């Protein structure tokens, strides 16, 4: 899943949308890889008023960027020698802006996506491009790989359902730019929002009452489904998550990983796959959980689950 942001505004939130279709994301990354000369670090180009760049960020820990591409990069006719290729890639990206986003983000309340915004972004980009004119550079080739980090498995508790387990990848989370700003809900959903995501908050349905029923309702407002309500293949990748509660005080989430164990990230501490006794977690219902004494339930989270 990719997060696209057109960095163009000063006061209001920038236009932001998600590319959830795996095929579309792969095509886009493939195009970026082919136009490697058009790709740059975020914030490296023009930084004045108006269109600055289009930012592309992978938000999943189990999707590898194509070789040569970082997890987060920018394109735009502003920061690279090959301005034409960069401008073309930025234009292609802006043209993917959905006119009615199926994934609701908090930014859409102030900056809704529509045709006028898309046209404005394209116009503003042309203005900036005229400021930055320079000659062309080299182009490159090959296509992106398939994802070896995700496996689809049948659910042992309800064999008609399937979900995806991914390679345990704590390094994605355990670094200074990510670890303090993402919690157990981010980890279990596998979405680095850098907002210490709270169940329901993305949909105006957050709760301050720390109990199984309230946190469950909040999470289901984000799109989680109770286990054994099978998710269709179109929701790939589908996670299996587990919710526990420290009654009255807090909640905690786990995510099933490839290899038969569970991963979790307690608050702003490091992501890990062992419990409070240092034992590999093979069942969140029975692992050592300190004060999180109430086991609530298991849930599926498909790609349409949005958190913030």
């Amino acid at each position, binding site marked *: 899943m990719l997060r696209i942001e057109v960095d163009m505004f000063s006061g209001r939130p920038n236009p932001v949308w998600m590319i959830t279709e795996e095929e579309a994301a792969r095509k886009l990354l493939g195009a970026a890889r082919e136009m490697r000369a058009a790709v740059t670090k975020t914030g490296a180009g023009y930084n004045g008023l108006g269109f600055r760049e289009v930012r592309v960020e992978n938000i999943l820990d189990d999707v590898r960027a194509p070789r040569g591409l970082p997890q987060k990069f920018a394109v735009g006719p502003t920061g690279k020698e090959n301005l034409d290729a960069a401008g073309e890639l930025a234009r292609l990206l802006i043209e993917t802006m959905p006119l009615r986003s199926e994934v609701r983000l908090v930014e859409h309340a102030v900056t809704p996506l529509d045709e006028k915004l898309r046209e404005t972004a394209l116009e503003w980009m042309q203005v900036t491009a005229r400021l930055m004119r320079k000659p062309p550079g080299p182009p490159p080739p090959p296509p992106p790989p398939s994802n070896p980090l995700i496996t689809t498995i049948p659910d042992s508790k309800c064999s008609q359902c399937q979900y995806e387990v991914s390679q345990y990848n704590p390094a994605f989370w355990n670094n200074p730019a990510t670890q303090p700003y993402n*919690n157990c809900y981010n980890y279990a959903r596998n979405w680095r929002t850098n907002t210490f995501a*709270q169940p329901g908050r993305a949909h105006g349905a957050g709760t301050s009452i*720390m109990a199984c029923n309230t946190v469950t309702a909040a999470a289901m407002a984000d799109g989680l489904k109770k286990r054994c309500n099978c998710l269709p293949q179109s929701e790939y990748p589908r996670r299996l998550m587990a919710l526990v509660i420290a009654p009255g005080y807090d909640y905690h989430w786990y995510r099933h990983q490839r290899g038969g164990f569970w991963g*979790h*990230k*307690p*608050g702003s501490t490091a992501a890990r796959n062992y419990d*409070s006794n240092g034992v590999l977690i093979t069942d969140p219902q029975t692992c050592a959980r*300190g004060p999180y004494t109430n086991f609530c339930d298991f849930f599926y989270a498909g790609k349409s689950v949005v958190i913030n």
Partner: protein
Amino acid sequence: MRVELDVFSGRPNPVWQLDAQAAAALVALHDVLAAGTAWEAPPALGYRGFLYTIRSDGCRAHHGAVRTAQTILADPGYSIERFLIARLPHDWIGLVPMIEGTLRPRE
């Protein structure tokens, strides 16, 4: 002085400010602690200690010891943790029994 109680997983941790008098008292308590060697890593879930900063040095007080970037200080009487427990904001008073339950005598 900013103090954080590192205890939650999902919700943001409780954070509050000590007034100047309480901050000075905390510094005084901290400055008399002797060097120690024992440091017990906090558990994954539940009470993981109090975080505060003295003279730009980030400190974590947990289970009768204080760990900074450079050193470990022994606090067998839990003076720092008890001082900060007594100054928890009212909204978080309910956490006190859970925290105090972990303050068993050090071996």
